[in-house]
């Protein structure tokens, strides 16, 4: 740490350190006190701007809800980010004032309050991310429970169609943009610098800012229920034009929420890329990187290239609504299908954004708990890159029945089916990693193995949907609902759970309760399959998706699905209880409870503020379990060996 501070001081001209603010000045410093007045103020500015501009231009009426929402969703978040302190350092720099000395007061968390500040420590940010995303996971899960309650019987019982359409739209949007994508970003944030032997991310302030964009996006989407005249956005998370253009004003909350979530994704991805490319410890060549780092490298590339497309698609919808541009309105020369092409050019790669980090987590967990090197390491890394490249060439398989150019279906079918090959390589390699291993069925391993088996089912149902003739029948049915939940729940969510359990000791310094963890796994595994497997059948038989009401012939199956889904929902309570109680009262975690070789386990749990007292020297592969004399790294002059990893003294705090 000392090294870091000195380096900083040598080449940056600094003003003297700030005095502790007292009296009224406490309201001008970064933090929640400044939020108290700056957010209402920016709300007023936005309102004044939106109405003032309309009045000046002579538009009637001056109060236009859509225009107001656009102004609010841009200006209020900026006011909040300014108030909480997201821009303080840069503001000084930009305005030509001397920047504040980096005293590292924004590093480390010493009380729970530090998690509610702009903190530049990647470990604090990682935990902020994971906890925030779990909040949205629970919220979106509750919406699914409401949907299943409604669907338990044909006809409408609890909610009307409009509310139901809002429920599945917000459910999907939160799960995708506020849970799976950022949950992986959070785990990566915590683990990647540790895994590559770096003291922090390349851009800690950008990292902090990218976190604070998330709650903004999430609250925006959730608050859409409160928008007058129609409530939440209800055109699905795909928000197809022209339905989205003619929707009530709540639809704007999706378009604008996605912008904030997308900006957060892009910032984090750039940060990951620069960190991975430039901040690896000496000796950590690309071929010595853990597969989780490879996976996040591929994912971040996808995010940076693809995310602007969804931003564009939603901006165009917003322009069509507010400025009456007509990008997607045939009556005004627009093209309805163009929206789908732009949307899926992001949203198909997004499927891999939501899956590749999970592949990385599964590789770490399976190797460690099988006590074996990962099978075919290089092919595993290369298949990630193959998926990255192929992932950009398959988007239109979501549009086989859309009425797009018919010839495009064949090449898209071929690429879609071919992408199963690198995916298959990964699955077979995980299985081969189990072979002749010594398998320890701790909770992370259970979730990783659950992931492999469930993801195989999701992948195989993807083959059905990839075949154009089969897709013509199955698209837009419950078969698709089953497929995406096998991929995103059985795939992504299982690996998120695996990752959370696996790194829980590292992140909190406590052990989770193994027995509760196993109960959680089995409830989830059984509940998940009973909930989602019958949906394949229901869909093929003729039940379309996104319906509040359906053919009574499917009543019994839907009742069974709903009951199973409630059990599945209840399993989350076990998880939350385990996390909260273990974090407070769990047994102290040793530095390396899993006897793993990767670098994050070679420092204390939780790690020191700057991760490594001494930069590790990487000398070999991260997965050399069972190889006599092989080493991944040398730290403090001592080799790091499997099963005999050095227990380090509690680092400075």
């Amino acid at each position: 740490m000392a090294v870091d501070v000195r380096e900083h001081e040598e080449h940056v001209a600094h003003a003297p350190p700030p005095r502790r603010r007292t009296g009224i000045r406490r309201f001008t410093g970064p933090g929640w006190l400044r939020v108290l007045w700056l957010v209402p103020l920016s709300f007023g500015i936005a309102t004044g701007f939106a109405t003032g501009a309309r009045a000046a231009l002579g538009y009637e009426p001056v109060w236009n809800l859509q225009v107001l929402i656009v102004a609010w969703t841009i200006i209020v978040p900026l006011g909040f980010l300014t108030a909480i302190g997201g821009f303080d350092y840069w503001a000084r720099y930009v305005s030509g004032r001397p920047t504040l000395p980096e005293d590292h007061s924004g590093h480390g968390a010493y009380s729970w309050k530090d998690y509610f500040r702009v903190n530049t420590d990647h470990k604090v940010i990682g935990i902020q991310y994971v906890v925030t995303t779990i909040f949205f996971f629970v919220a979106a899960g509750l919406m699914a429970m409401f949907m299943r309650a409604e669907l338990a019987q044909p006809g409408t019982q609890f909610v009307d169609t409009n509310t139901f359409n809002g429920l599945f739209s917000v459910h999907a949007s939160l799960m995708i943009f506020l849970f799976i994508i950022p949950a992986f970003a959070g785990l990566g944030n915590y683990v990647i610098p540790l895994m590559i032997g770096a003291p922090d991310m390349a851009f800690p302030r950008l990292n902090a800012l990218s976190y604070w964009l998330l709650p903004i996006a999430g609250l925006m989407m959730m608050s859409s229920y409160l928008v007058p005249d129609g409530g939440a956005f209800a055109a699905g998370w795909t928000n197809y034009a022209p339905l989205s253009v003619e929707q009530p004003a709540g639809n704007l909350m999706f378009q604008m929420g996605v912008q904030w979530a997308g900006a957060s994704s892009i910032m984090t991805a750039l940060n990951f890329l620069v960190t991975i490319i430039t901040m690896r410890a000496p000796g950590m060549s690309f071929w010595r990187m853990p597969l989780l780092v490879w996976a996040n490298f591929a994912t971040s590339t996808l995010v940076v290239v693809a995310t602007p497309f969804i931003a564009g698609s939603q901006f165009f919808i917003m322009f069509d609504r507010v400025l009456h541009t007509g990008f997607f309105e045939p009556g005004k020369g627009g093209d309805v299908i163009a929206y789908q092409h732009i949307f899926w050019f992001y949203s198909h790669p997004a499927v891999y954004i939501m899956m590749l980090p999970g592949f990385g987590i599964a590789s770490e967990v399976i190797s460690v708990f099988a006590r074996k090197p990962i099978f075919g390491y290089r092919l595993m890394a290369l298949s990630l890159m193959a998926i990255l490249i192929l992932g950009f060439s398959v988007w239109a398989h979501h549009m086989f029945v859309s009425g797009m150019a018919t010839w495009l279906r064949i090449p898209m079918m071929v690429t879609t089916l071919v992408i199963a090959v690198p995916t298959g390589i990964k699955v077979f390699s995980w299985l081969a990693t189990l072979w002749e291993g010594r398998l320890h069925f701790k909770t992370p391993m259970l979730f990783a193995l659950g992931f492999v088996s469930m993801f195989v089912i999701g992948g195989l149902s993807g083959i059905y949907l990839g075949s154009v003739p089969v897709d013509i029948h199955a698209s837009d049915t419950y078969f698709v609902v089953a497929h995406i939940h096998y991929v995103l729940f059985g795939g992504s969510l299982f690996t998120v759970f695996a990752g959370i359990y696996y790194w829980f000791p590292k992140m909190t310094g406590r052990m989770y309760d193994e027995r509760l963890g196993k109960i959680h796994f089995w409830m989830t595994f059984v509940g998940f399959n009973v909930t989602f497997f019958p949906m394949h059948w229901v869909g093929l038989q003729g039940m379309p998706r996104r319906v509040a009401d359906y053919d009574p012939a499917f009543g019994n199956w839907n009742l069974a699905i709903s009951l199973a889904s409630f059990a599945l929902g209840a399993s989350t309570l076990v998880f939350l209880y385990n996390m909260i109680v273990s974090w407070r009262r769990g047994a102290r975690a040793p530095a390396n409870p899993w006897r793993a070789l990767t670098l994050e386990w070679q420092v204390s749990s939780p790690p020191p503020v700057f991760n490594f007292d001494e930069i590790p020297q990487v000398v070999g592969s991260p997965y050399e379990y069972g190889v006599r004399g092989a080493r991944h790294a040398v730290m403090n002059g001592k080799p790091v060996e499997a099963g005999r990893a050095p227990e380090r003294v509690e680092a400075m705090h």
Partner: protein
Amino acid sequence: MTLVGLAAGAVLAAVAIFIPWLPDEASREAGLIDNAFWLVTIICAAVFAVVAGVSVYAVYKFRAPPGDLEDGSPIHGHTGLEIVWTVVPIALVVAIAVYSGVALGQAEEIPEDHTVIEIRAQQFAWNFTYPGIELQEGRQLSSGELVMRIDDPVEFRITAEDVIHSFWVPEFRMKQDAVPGITTRTVVTPTKLGTYPVICAELCGLGHPTMRSQARVLTAAQFDRWVEEQRRLAAEGASAGGMELFAQQCGSCHTLADAGTSAQTGPDLDSVLPGQSAEEIRESIVEPDAEVSQGFQPGVMPGNFGEELSEQQLDGLVEYLRESAGGGE
């Protein structure tokens, strides 16, 4: 391990064979699509059996005894195996792609001698028009339900008035989005007499779950009789045809006990219509947003019934509604 794999395969085969995965096969295209479906199923079941067999065996065979601190065998890879599990999947997906491509080509082939039916989708109703069949002088036959002749290939030309819809009859397997601004096409050759649901498969707004109609497959003689019946109703015009017209055009959204409809997308006509004059009823049909019942949104009911229906049909419908509303009480 072979045993475990075989057991997994046997269970899967049973699941695949004994559960009726697909609905009735009622068109030529359904047969082609189902063949592709079963090819994919066979390949996927085999792959899954291998994966399940290996995992179950490995989980059982290689579990570590409690307190075990040993490592597993340091196997880093096996080039031969890696080539096998790259090449075999490539072969399998190429087989699926080729078969699917051929099946698609055959399914979408339009024979020289075929019928054209135009589908117009709008929130939240289907309209099927038969070019070449005249209802009256200068007026084409059109209907809210789809009626087809058995073994007669039909080319559907599909458009949408407002947002995207999707035309789907599960028993025909064919599905095609209806897109505003363009005409999309699909082909169906019904091969089995019967009545099947027409379903909107693409989320289109509040009435999406109720945007349904039915497809009736008739013999050629029955079809001709149906056409005659339609002509007769159109000629009579008055309230005699009102109930059929209501069931076709309005029943997918409105409840009316007399016509036997019970949909809830729009207001319940048994409770809102009694006491309304003929002019008021006519206005509600022709200009639905002029006055919207409490608890319902404007913009949901199509606004083009004034152009869609002939003057006689409209008269008949208003007459019928005035007579029958409240009949459920």
